[in-house]
């Protein structure tokens, strides 16, 4: 279980506070722009360091680990693939971030590429893939990383609605045991795919609530955001 303990982070006059736990399964993070959704993900991934508080994974403290040393993988909005490397190498880096990925990593990468439905495209460069295929390749790498927490920062928002839904359902079905945290601007994504949802407003992060319950009885801030 991912636990965020009294986390605080100040930048200029933006103050961020979070104190909560996230269960395995897909959890959506919703809220107005600038409210602190991406800050939450950044702090969990280790791209920013908090001013106070701790981030725990199964009760071990990961607050001060480098991003690559955390049990956390990230799917970014874009630039998820190195454009100069082919699909297979891009995926294999998930298991073996070395100048020459190990041969068993290449083997595993091949399987992951097949699982996301890109068999036969291993040798392509990202620019020769469609947007949907690029997202699949990035997903294949996350499958390979062996990291229990996966952060998705509007990962598929550049895709059309049908493709986005397809990617989200693929992500949830391929990684049923992982803790997936997804920032989204689309409440429908949360309703359709997320067991629980977190509402963020003005730097205050609420604890996760069952998505159905949250949308059936929205707190005042969420109601204003949704209308």
């Amino acid at each position: 279980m991912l636990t965020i303990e009294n986390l605080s982070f100040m930048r200029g006059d933006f103050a961020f506070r979070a104190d909560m736990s996230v269960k395995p399964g897909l959890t959506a993070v919703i809220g107005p722009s600038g409210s602190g959704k991406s800050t939450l993900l950044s702090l969990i991934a280790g791209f920013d360091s908090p001013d106070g508080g701790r981030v725990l994974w199964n009760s071990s403290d990961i607050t001060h680990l480098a991003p690559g040393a955390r049990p956390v993988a990230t799917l970014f909005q874009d630039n998820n693939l190195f454009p100069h490397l082919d699909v297979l190498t891009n995926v294999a880096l998930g298991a073996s971030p070395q100048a020459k990925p190990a041969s068993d990593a290449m083997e595993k990468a091949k399987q992951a590429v097949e699982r996301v439905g890109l068999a036969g495209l291993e040798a392509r460069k990202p620019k020769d893939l469609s947007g949907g295929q690029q997202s699949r390749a990035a997903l294949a790498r996350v499958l390979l990383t062996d990291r229990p927490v996966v952060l998705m920062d509007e990962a598929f928002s550049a895709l059309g609605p049908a493709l986005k839904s397809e990617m989200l359902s693929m992500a949830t079905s391929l990684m049923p045991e992982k803790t997936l945290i997804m920032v989204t601007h689309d409440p429908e994504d949360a309703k359709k795919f997320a067991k629980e949802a977190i509402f963020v407003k003005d730097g205050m992060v609420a604890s996760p609530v069952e998505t159905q319950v949250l949308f059936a009885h929205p707190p005042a801030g969420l109601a204003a955001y949704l209308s």
Partner: protein
Amino acid sequence: MADRAQPLSFWPAAGIVAAVAIPALILVTAGAVFLQAEPGQGLSPADWAAVRFTLWQAFLSSLISCILAIPVARALARRKFAGRRMLITLLGAPFLLPVIVAVFGLLAIFGREGLANAVLGGLGFEPMSIFGLHGVVLAHVFFNLPLATRLVLQGWQDIPGERFRLAASLDMDASAIQMHLERPMLWRVLPGAALVIFVICTTSFAVALTLGGGPKATTVELAIYQALRFEFDLSKAAFLSLIQLGITVVAALVLLRMGLSAGFGAGMDRPAQRWDANGVWQRWFDVLAIGFAALFLLLPLGAVFLRGIPAVADLPASVWSSAVRSLSVALASTTIVIVLSLAMAIAAARPNGGWIEAAGLLAIAASPLVVGTGLFILIFPFVRPEALALPVTALVNAIVTIPFALRAMIPAMRTIETDYGRLADSLGLTGWARMRLLIVPRIRRPLGFAAGLSAALSMGDLGVIALFADPNGATLPLQVQRLMGAYRMDDAGGAAVVLLVLSFALFWGFDRGIGRADD
């Protein structure tokens, strides 16, 4: 991203060391010069003359380059013609051209026996001399007219095409467009271009060495060289170096204040479509401007080839051995530039790395000849300077090329960090793996350019080497200069061709070899 936890690994650490070492070396050499200069010794009339000549020729060169650049850039900005792209590429060439090769070409056209005097003589005029102020300014215009043209052309191309469309829809005529669009742009671009060229001309030793000289046409740098090599007066050389240092530092400070940089200007875009420039005389004026610029650049180069190629087969062995010496200097210098600029760019792209760029740019203020004089003073008590001529040449050339390399590489490195830094961090891609898989593939274009630039510049260098070299250890540019001095013009021409071909081949080889993009 500002406070991402990042351990200091080898490359950024090396970059920080380099960013401290380069200004330190410049300061130490300046300090050596300062201590050696005899206190209380005022400027002799000859020294004053050198200062005046340095500033005057730089002023004239800059003024003439900029004035001539306006019609040429305007013609390039508004005309489409076959060979336009090639001509613009050619405008980048003088930067890589070894000075001594250009001087040989200019002598062939404008010298006593040259084409220009033949024409003048045919028309009944007195022959003109290329030596002295004329020659120095002519050579500087040859080198800097292309630079000025590229900078001004850049200004023209930065005027959005919509403006010209708007002007056309308002039915503005050429003079109205000049008034409202072009003149404001020129006022913005020209002062910077003029100042950059002025600075370049105050530190251009090789031109003064070959075309200047004598009481009326000696620059400060030339006076340093004469004090060191002929009078062997270390303290006089040191004193003159201080003056030169003062000139370059003041000029560099003004440049920095204006927020300018010695860029190259890109200007490869298509010309903007214009509706105001279709008059007959405008067309002819543009044809003349382009024809003049092309001839001015191509005739001297053509003369080098015409004169030199027949002699290449019979060149004396000393030319070939000096070519090997120059190649080794160029390769050593390029290796230093690649390693240091890569490390410095990596360090500069880190949070709070801004000062690294500034430290690297400091080398712009350093005159290679002053750094060379400082090194000469420092090593002279211990070793014969001649023994270290080649390593010192490679090092000083590397240091003065690094600002240009950083200019190209730091923005690219920052883009890599913004686009892929987080991805690489989250994958745990560090150290050699990050270098090999992320940085090298994505930096290779500017890195290849920087390496090519560095190789060509140090191949053609005729600065520091003149201070240090002994007669048997000459590099190729020095050899060309000596052959010219001995009036062995055929051999000099042949050696100039070899030098020219090697310089451009090095640039091309590195730029294409390292810079080949694979995405």
